[in-house]
């Protein structure tokens, strides 16, 4: 198994270059590449961010932008079993002073479920249909705690109660198919939180749910976060959910971060044309119905042939403004716009300001 992590380390920079950071979770220059018959799929290509305890980071992007792969990389899920042979990972993931990319799989396994836990998008396929919901929670607890089944069961009932499942003592013996969509998602949250993890990753936790249930689940996650003080990474494509719950926002496009900053700033003063596009293409319930939405033209890029230069340039209406063809040849790096607010775009600050205030903001 150790050789797997060596293969991971073989690509890109040496992993032990950095020192343990101060932040609770810090991801530095993370790359996750999958070699396939058609070519190298660069799902995540140089992503860095950090997250403190008690805060929520939302990762936003279209399908195929690398959001889910990022979260699975943090959880170490790419290196499980045969999958580990088909992935090339590099970079650093520091969780509470421990580096995960170079760590032995056994080490990561001890952390998984205890220090970090994940809520998946589709709870029906994430839970084992053959085992009772309670037993699955009990298992998750007993892996990390040397307690009797009885104690673990009490704990499971307590957690089910905490996430708002009615009659938890009875429901604990139910099978996943006997739960409705919202209840399943609650049960999965209970399973994820049974060990009081310090990092909770929620991968599209509400996408498959109705708005009313979505509101319940978001409230639940928020309350639990307050109670346990965990750090939360919320992966979603719904900007409404982001505004609801996030402290910081990271916008991903083509495997890279194009904009990152505090939620308020990203919604008020978005700097990247792609973020403008996302905001413009969302019908909003709180505003007057404008005649038309402003979509982003074209479709998301293939991760095998990511466009040269700025990956967004083929879809960007402003790609021709910067001089000298830079958008097509030079990949823009993240630059700080204001404190904590970063954006990767070739447009000059003045241009961006002008376009946002004159062209985009009035139409939203």
């Amino acid at each position, binding site marked *: 198994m150790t050789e797997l992590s060596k293969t991971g380390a073989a690509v890109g920079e040496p992993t032990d270059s950095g020192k343990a950071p101060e932040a609770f979770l810090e991801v530095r220059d993370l790359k996750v590449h999958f070699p396939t018959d058609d070519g190298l799929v660069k799902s995540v290509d140089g992503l860095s961010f950090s997250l403190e305890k008690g805060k929520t980071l939302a990762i936003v992007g279209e399908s195929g932008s690398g959001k889910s792969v990022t979260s699975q990389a943090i959880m170490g899920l790419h290196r499980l079993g045969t999958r580990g042979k088909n992935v090339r990972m590099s970079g650093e993931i520091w969780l509470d002073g421990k580096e995960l990319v170079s760590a032995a799989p056994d080490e990561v396994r001890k952390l998984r479920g205890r220090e970090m836990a994940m809520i998946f998008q589709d709870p029906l396929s994430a839970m084992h249909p053959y085992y009772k919901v309670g037993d699955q929670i009990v298992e998750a607890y007993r892996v990390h705690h040397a307690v009797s089944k009885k104690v673990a069961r009490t704990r499971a009932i307590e957690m089910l109660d905490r996430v708002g499942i009615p009659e938890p003592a009875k429901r604990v013996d139910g099978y996943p198919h006997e739960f409705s969509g919202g209840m399943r998602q609650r049960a999965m949250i209970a399973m994820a939180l049974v060990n009081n993890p310090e990092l909770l990753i929620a991968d599209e936790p509400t996408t498959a749910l109705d708005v009313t249930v979505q509101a319940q689940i978001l409230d639940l996650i928020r309350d639990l976060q307050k109670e346990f003080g965990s750090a939360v990474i919320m992966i979603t494509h719904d900007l409404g959910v982001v505004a609801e719950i996030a402290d910081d926002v990271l916008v991903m496009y083509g495997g890279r971060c194009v904009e990152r900053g505090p939620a308020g700033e990203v919604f008020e003063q978005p700097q990247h044309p792609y973020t403008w596009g996302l905001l413009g293409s*969302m019908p909003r319930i709180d505003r007057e119905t404008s005649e038309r939405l402003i979509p982003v033209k074209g479709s998301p890029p293939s991760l095998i042939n990511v466009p040269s230069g700025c990956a967004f340039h083929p879809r960007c209406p402003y790609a021709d403004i910067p001089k000298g063809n830079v958008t097509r040849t030079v990949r823009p790096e993240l630059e700080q716009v204001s404190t904590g607010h970063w954006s990767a775009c070739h447009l000059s600050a003045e241009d961006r300001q002008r376009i946002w205030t004159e062209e985009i903001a009035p139409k939203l």
Partner: protein
Amino acid sequence: MSETKKTDTVAEAAVPKQASAPEERDVLLKVEGLTKHFPIKKGILQRQVGAVKAVDGLDFEVRKGETLGVVGESGCGKSTMGRVITRLQDPTGGKITFEGQDITRLNTGQMRPLRRDIQMIFQDPYGSLNPRHTIGSIVSAPFRLQGVEPEGGVKKEVQRLLALVGLSPEHYNRYPHEFSGGQRQRIGIARALALKPKLVVADEPVSALDVSIQAQVVNLMDDLQQELGLTYVIIAHDLSVVRHVSDRIAVMYLGKIVELADRTSLYESPMHPYTKALMSAVPVPDPKRRGQKSERILLRGDVPSPIAPPSGCRFHTRCWKATQICKTTEPQLVELRPGQRVACHHPENFADQAPQDTVLLTAAKEASELVPDAVLSEGAAGKEPASDKATAAEETAAAEAAASEAVASEEKPASEKEATASEDKQAASTEETASEEEAVSSESASEEEASGEGAAEDEEASEGEEASEDEVASEESAASGVKTGPGAKVSAGKAVPAADAPAEEPATATGAAADAPAEGSGDTEAVAEETGREAEATGKASGADSQESTGK
């Protein structure tokens, strides 16, 4: 099941007549009392043991050139509705009229010529295109099937259609797997538009797509509507999308329309509590509004099973305003404001439809824990004066009735009839409720007036009738005084299991519950007459007690 159908048609006959007489000629599709039940079969003989009432009595019309949005949670029957009005599935009951022609019972052959005019766009762009056919053959299939030879040949027309939806003509020979989700959805749209349909039913056309692509498709559908004069029925669960595309919106809950209104009124002043809760739950992409959690109404629990929908108003198990009447009487879809039809006893932003009924259900009390105080106090404020009116004087009730007469013209003669027939003060105090019932079945109401006791027996005889009839019976019996309790009990006990057969427990529970209210409301009314509010308070308490005891 036939009983349900019957009541539905009765209900239909009375209600929407008042709605749209002037626009009759513009109506493209008219749906009356539409039901679709899926049988549940069990055992070796495959006997039918119940039915999933996916669609259970829909009345609406679609006018030429408009977009009707249909929203609701999953399992509310919106997709089934779409499939039934396009006759992809056969309705169990009700009537569908397309351009004045009754298409409810047409067979496949008879439907074929109409398929040109009614087309559907499906939700899943991956599942709705045959992977072994080229785009050319998929989009030209309608021409082949209908035997239409377009001007300039099929290929040219298909390429024109592809260009119309934003694909390039050389995609003609490619296969579906070569396209992205958004492009596939465009192919589906091109296919739907091939024969220049009059009505396009789109079932979740954008929900499988990314946000940026969603906007492209929404804009495309918008452009095509203007260009080709299409009429859309758009089914979706995303309220912001529906708001953006629709002229009028129908909100569905458990197989019924609870509110049908034009876009602005629905979003600015929703009347049905469910609509309000639904809209308050939509996340708004504006972090500044995060603190304003007070606007949020959280609904507790999940949608009940459509196999055994709750009695009375189907939303009463989750509604924070639910009172006794909501449990026993099904509210009809009534046009309370011009262009806004609502099925609720205690609508938001409008006069209470059942002001004398003030006792909150236990379910409502539980729900109210989750409702922010602001909303609740607003609700209470709305209700308090209403109950004053009911207890204080009949004049107010009469005035209110007069107000609602303006909207529902049938109510007037019916309520007058009642007033003259019984010459009872109670009639006036219950007028609001009573007149509603009469709107539903004025004949049956007058019959019952003729013979008070006989009515109760009638109820027993026609056990299949819906809970609404029970309410009439119980009111009637409240007036006649003596025979009430048992009569109402029997009819309610029978009617409920007959209507939705399956589980014994709920059936008996409702039976018992319906028994209690008969006494409770009788009490309340009788005492309120004489002593006013204090007495009513006691009545309230007793009502609450009995209800709690029966509830468990």
